[in-house]
């Protein structure tokens, strides 16, 4: 069903904008939650994004935008509501749509907007040190403000009872990984409740981006999450190009897809090695996998001058082209990496001890994945058939479709196998891109225009969404939504019931970004 037809069912909603792929409608702050519930419950749309903007100067109000994905029609439906400055509340969406719960706590912290009726409105992004009444995303808050050091409580979930005890872990972990704090409430070895405290690496990127030109913003975007530079840059540039209304040359599209798949290959190889090796103690897989990953990183250094697939994707196209020899180098290195990794993983999968650790561990039921708005590979491994590359084709994926890999069991094994299958698809795609690479330009002249657009990319982790508004030639508001932001909540579901020593393998099987979430 088309989004306009859906929205026509609600008399309270007024359609304000219609373009291919996007429909926007205005609703009142009282109706928002009810319509959202109907869109998700009755029409099966997914809540993909909820964010606010400060428009107090012009309208004495905050703007609230909820983005729903209408996969079947390949459209995004944006519901916008105004929240008056003096009386900043609206009726909470979380009460009926669980996927909204982090977004609403986020709004509460960053804008001071109250979602009335939210079941759990504790602090999310602000730690103890942030004083009460600090709202960094309001326009009157300076990006370089110096704040006092406060000591506001940051309560976490806690279970009490005979024989139940609590294990606090982090933020500084035993391994070389990112910082996060986890509380395990356990009875014996088994996890009863698990909650994470994140946003340790919060650097204020969203605020810094305000007032920057598109070009000035790009370095921050490429450094949101070190392991996802190409995908983030692509989503950002797509939003910029959508606002400018330009189409990039075919060669640029193909090279962009190629880069994205190379990034996917790098990280899938890493994850196969990390889950299989470091997660289970089967060090043969890790030793070989990391060696193979290093070769792909060196390939990036050879063709781009850095090891992280950075610097090539820019608004309007690409900053550099690949020569025939470079493309050949990419193909050969990728092929070798793929076949070797396959061989290593197949040996591991022949081991019963290895399978015992993966199978039935960390099960994420499909219902939970849908309810919490899980995205990407982790959702597909639980049977959620969604993939931006198919549902909202971008770059070269329209012309060269990618088959979507789904699994049904939702355990660590399903996520492991999904990575292996995706790696195969990616290899085939890289071959196709190199052999059928179009000739021609790699840049379209771009004139930055004012407006609003959504950029979406299926990164190796999952759907990245950028809500970007440009005003007077500079960024007015940019909300980059990392797939990890949606998937962190899943730990509360897939953790309990498992034993504590299995948590690391559950964690590695999701491989979420702290930096990308914390921004």
């Amino acid at each position, binding site marked *: 069903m088309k989004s306009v037809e859906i929205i026509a069912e609600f008399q309270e909603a007024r359609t304000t904008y219609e373009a291919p792929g996007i429909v926007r409608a205005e609703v009142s702050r009282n109706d928002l939650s009810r319509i959202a519930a109907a869109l998700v419950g009755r029409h099966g749309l997914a809540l993909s994004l909820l964010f606010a903007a400060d428009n107090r100067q012009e309208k004495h109000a905050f703007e609230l935008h909820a983005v729903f994905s209408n996969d079947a029609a390949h459209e995004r439906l944006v519901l916008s509501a105004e929240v008056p400055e003096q009386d900043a509340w609206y009726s909470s969406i979380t009460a009926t749509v669980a996927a909204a719960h982090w977004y609403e706590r986020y709004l509460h912290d960053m804008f001071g907007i109250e979602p009335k009726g939210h079941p759990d409105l504790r602090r999310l992004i602000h730690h103890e040190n942030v004083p009460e009444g600090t709202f960094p995303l309001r326009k009157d808050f300076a990006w370089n403000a110096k704040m006092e050091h406060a000591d506001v409580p940051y309560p976490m979930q806690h279970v009490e009872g005979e024989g139940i005890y609590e294990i606090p872990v982090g933020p500084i972990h035993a391994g070389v990984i990112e910082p996060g704090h986890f509380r395990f409430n356990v009875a014996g070895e088994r996890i009863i409740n698990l909650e994470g405290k994140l946003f340790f690496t919060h650097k204020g*990127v969203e605020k810094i981006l305000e007032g920057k030109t598109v070009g000035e913003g790009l370095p921050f975007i490429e450094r949101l999450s*070190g392991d996802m530079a190409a995908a983030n840059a692509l989503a950002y540039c797509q939003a910029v190009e959508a606002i400018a209304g330009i189409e990039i040359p075919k060669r640029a599209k193909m090279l962009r897809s190629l880069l994205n798949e190379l990034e996917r290959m790098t990280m899938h190889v890493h994850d196969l090695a990390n889950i299989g090796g470091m997660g289970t103690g089967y060090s043969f897989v890790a030793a070989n996998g*990391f060696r193979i990953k*290093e070769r792909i990183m060196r390939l990036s250094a050879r063709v781009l001058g850095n090891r992280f697939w950075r610097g090539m994707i820019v608004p309007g196209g690409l900053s550099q082209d690949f020569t025939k020899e470079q493309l050949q180098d990419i193909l050969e290195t990728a092929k070798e990496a793929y076949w070797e990794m396959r061989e290593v993983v197949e040996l591991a999968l022949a081991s019963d001890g290895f399978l015992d650790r993966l199978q039935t561990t960390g099960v994420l039921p499909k219902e939970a994945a849908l309810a919490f708005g899980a995205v990407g590979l982790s959702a597909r491994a639980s049977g959620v058939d969604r993939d931006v590359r198919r549902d909202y084709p971008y770059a070269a994926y329209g012309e060269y479709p990618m088959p979507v890999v789904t699994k049904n069991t939702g355990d660590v094994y399903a996520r492991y196998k999904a990575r292996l299958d995706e790696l195969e698809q990616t290899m085939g795609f890289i071959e196709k891109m190199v052999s059928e690479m179009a000739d021609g330009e790699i840049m379209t002249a771009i004139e930055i225009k004012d407006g609003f657009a959504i950029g979406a990319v299926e990164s190796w982790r999952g759907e990245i969404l950028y809500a970007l508004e440009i005003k007077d030639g500079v960024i007015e508001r940019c909300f980059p939504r990392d797939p990890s932001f949606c998937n962190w909540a899943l730990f509360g579901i897939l953790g309990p019931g498992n034993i504590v020593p299995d948590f690391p393998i559950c964690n590695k099987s999701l491989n979420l970004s702290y*930096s990308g979430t914390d921004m």
Partner: protein
Amino acid sequence: MSLLKLLKMLFFGPRVTEPKKSFEDQEFEKIGADIKKEIRRLYGGRSLRIRAVDGGSTNAEEIELTALGNAYYDIDRFGLSFVASPRHADMLFVTGPVTRNLERAVKTTYEAAPQPCIVVAIGDGACIGGIWKDSYAVVGAVDKVIPVHVRIPGDPPTPTEILKGILAALRSAKK
């Protein structure tokens, strides 16, 4: 795998490892050998233990630190290894611009490490605050929180640059 198949693979199968010369990096080996010597001079022993702390990085630095353990670099050969507790550490690696939310964690980690502890700031963020410097959420370079002895700039520094930095740190340290 049947025995016959195994034997067949062992004798007639494709190569499963790479000959050392195909990836040996002379420069890297030289730095490693020098580090080994410095460790002996400083500590009279054979090993140096490192505790890595993420002070707010983008995880690119962590990727490179992890890479130091892969077969191409394998820093364990030179007596270097990452440890799980600061109590066991001779050296502290700190990455990222230190964020407000991690300031206390970085400080406590430093306090928990036995002295003398060599502190190395890894990456532009850790050295000067990087592109996020002055943000409301960021404290700044690592030296705003704890004393820093050596800085390894880079965005992020490559594994070889990190190893060079370790050597410089050891050379500048007094016995």
